[in-house]
């Protein structure tokens, strides 16, 4: 993972903390909470499932209720339901907002310019990519020099280039500046308000929000770090993280897992496997310097996935010692994984010692000299090819 996505309600909490108006609302995780927690809200309500997947509206995850009873009924329908591959555990109940027009506003960390970029569209409520295709004239895109930051001319440019009423300038400027503060203070790679609603009186309100936070910055944000463990993830990914490994589930139809001491080699091994008509079901990055005990854990985690029959380990060892890897494989295989096949390609530190260990393993472990030989062995060794 390189970024953490926040659920809507958490993003809105941040917006609110940074002075951006959001609808009044509460989050519930059981039907029993509804009457208690939502009693101070003014009906009608909007109910939104809190899942990390797009297209909630189309999937029936955004509903409306006229009173508490109606809200309870919807919550009992939606809680625990699977939607877009996620289980609904939380629902945001908010006061339905009065919306005259919908805008779009985001700040992204743009890899090309290596600067924050503000994107505004006077057409909100839909994907910005779609507007970019159908209505590019309604988008304003401004690259921000991070050494200057956002000044009031940014909002002035948005108003001018999108042909909006000048009466919105002050409030829009406030929102853009506040969102930029949030973007920087929370190390965001994306902070998006879509839609940004314009009410009949001209006031602005954030109706929905997305925030992606840079993983490497989480040490600065304990509040966000705490949330991470509550996110639905592959259970093997979570287990692997305990040992400081990165486990990435891939093709569900695959039967080959790949492990390496670096993500570049992982990717190039998977590319060669796929090119040869086979499918990889998972990748595991061991990082540098793993001990035999940790390697054994990695092998066990990999084979906990029931569709994994083959494991291809490719190591180019500098800090990672080949003998430690071989010993780790031995420990795991001899502890009850004799029915699995491991293809080992070990190069670098202590390679000779490693080969002696692999030859002593009581199980199906094959030494190969190169990545291409490993791929060839996989191809000829698998029954269904």
């Amino acid at each position, binding site marked *: 993972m*390189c970024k953490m996505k926040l659920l809507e309600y958490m993003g809105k909490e941040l917006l609110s903390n940074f002075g951006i108006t959001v609808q009044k609302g509460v989050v519930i995780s059981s039907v029993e909470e509804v009457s208690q927690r939502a009693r101070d809200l003014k009906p009608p309500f909007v109910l939104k499932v809190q899942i990390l997947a797009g297209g909630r509206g189309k999937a029936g995850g955004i509903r409306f209720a006229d009173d508490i009873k109606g809200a309870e009924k919807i919550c009992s329908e939606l809680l625990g339901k699977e939607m877009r591959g996620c289980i609904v555990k939380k629902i945001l109940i908010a006061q339905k907002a009065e919306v005259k027009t919908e805008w779009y506003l985001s700040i992204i960390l743009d890899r090309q310019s*290596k*600067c924050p970029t503000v994107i505004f569209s006077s057409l909100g409520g839909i994907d910005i990519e779609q507007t970019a295709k159908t209505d590019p004239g309604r988008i304003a895109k401004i690259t921000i020099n991070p050494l200057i930051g956002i000044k009031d001319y940014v909002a002035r440019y948005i108003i001018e280039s999108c042909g909006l009423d000048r009466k919105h300038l002050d409030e829009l400027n406030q929102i853009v500046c506040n969102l930029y503060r949030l973007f920087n203070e929370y*190390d965001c790679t994306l902070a998006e308000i879509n839609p940004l609603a314009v009410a009949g009186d001209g006031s602005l309100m954030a109706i929905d929000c997305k925030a992606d936070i840079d993983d490497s910055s989480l040490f600065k944000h304990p509040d966000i770090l705490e949330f991470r463990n509550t996110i639905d993830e592959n259970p093997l990914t979570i287990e692997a993280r305990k040992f400081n490994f990165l486990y990435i589930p891939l093709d569900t139809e695959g039967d080959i897992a790949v492990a390496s001491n*670096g*993500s*570049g080699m992982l*990717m190039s091994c998977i*590319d060669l496997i796929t090119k040869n008509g086979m499918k990889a079901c998972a990748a595991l990055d061991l990082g540098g310097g793993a001990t035999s005990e940790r390697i054994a854990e990695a092998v066990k985690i990999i084979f906990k996935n029931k569709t994994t029959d083959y494991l291809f380990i490719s190591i180019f060892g500098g800090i990672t010692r080949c003998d430690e890897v071989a010993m780790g494989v031995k420990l795991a295989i001899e502890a009850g994984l004799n029915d699995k096949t491991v293809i080992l390609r070990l190069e670098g*530190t202590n390679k000779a010692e490693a080969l002696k260990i692999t030859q002593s393993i009581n199980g199906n472990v094959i030494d190969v000299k190169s990545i291409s030989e490993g791929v060839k062995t996989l191809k000829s060794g698998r029954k269904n090819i």
Partner: protein
Amino acid sequence: MSILIDEKTKLIIQGITGREGTFHGQRMLEYGTKVVAGVTPGKGGSEVFGIPVYDTVREAYLKTKADASILFVPPKFTAIGAYEAMDAGIPLVITIAEHVPVHDMMSVYNISKSTGSRVIGPNSFGVISPGKSKAGFMHDKIFTQGSVGIMSRSATNCYETVFLLTNNGIGQSTVIGIGGDMIPGSAFIDYLGMFEADEQTKVIVLIGEIGGSDEEAAAAFIRENVKKPVVALIAGKNAPRGTSMGHAGAIVSADGTGSAQNKEEKLLAAGVHIAEGTEHIVQIIKDLKCV
């Protein structure tokens, strides 16, 4: 010749008294790197294997007129260490830590544009001109001096390629770890012109991967400015969209931006030889018969 560093390059090690700084400092000295000073706040006036340690990069630079500085500091202190080096006037700053916050690197990158310093990394093994000097923690025994210039976003794919080249009797001029992060201090495009001008370099190898548009930018530059043969490998062709493949920067966006296919198309159109894997890189170079 080679580029960026050679036997004359004077190097400062920031964090020289730390575990990694001392360990790799010694290895760099053994390799022949001209390490002239170390910097650790609070340890100024001491020495590590006979090399003077200073409290600040500015003082170290004033005393030694170093050409480069390498940072063996934890990720959360990488930005401040790079600021200090750039502010002191060091022309080449090498950062190696993994997990540097991307906002920190955005700031380092933009400041480097105003100070004129060149930043390599982070999440990089550093840079080596085999037989002359190394500034980094790479496994130096696999490198040999020769005429292939290499730059790579991945350390493992780079080591693999270098190992295979060396085993086939093909040496390298300079090997640069661009690093695997979203915002590297410098990218392929910053070194293509240097490799093109370098007499020692006969072939350029670019090891890229999914995510971002640095390979596309390199392709546009190669088309206009590079006459030497370029061989490229793009890793991650079969990575699922929206999933980071371990390197923070190796991610194809949901809309397909950063895909391997787009990168290969652009490079191919610029006359670059596309390799399927590391072994194929070596085969292509052999077939070129120019080294």
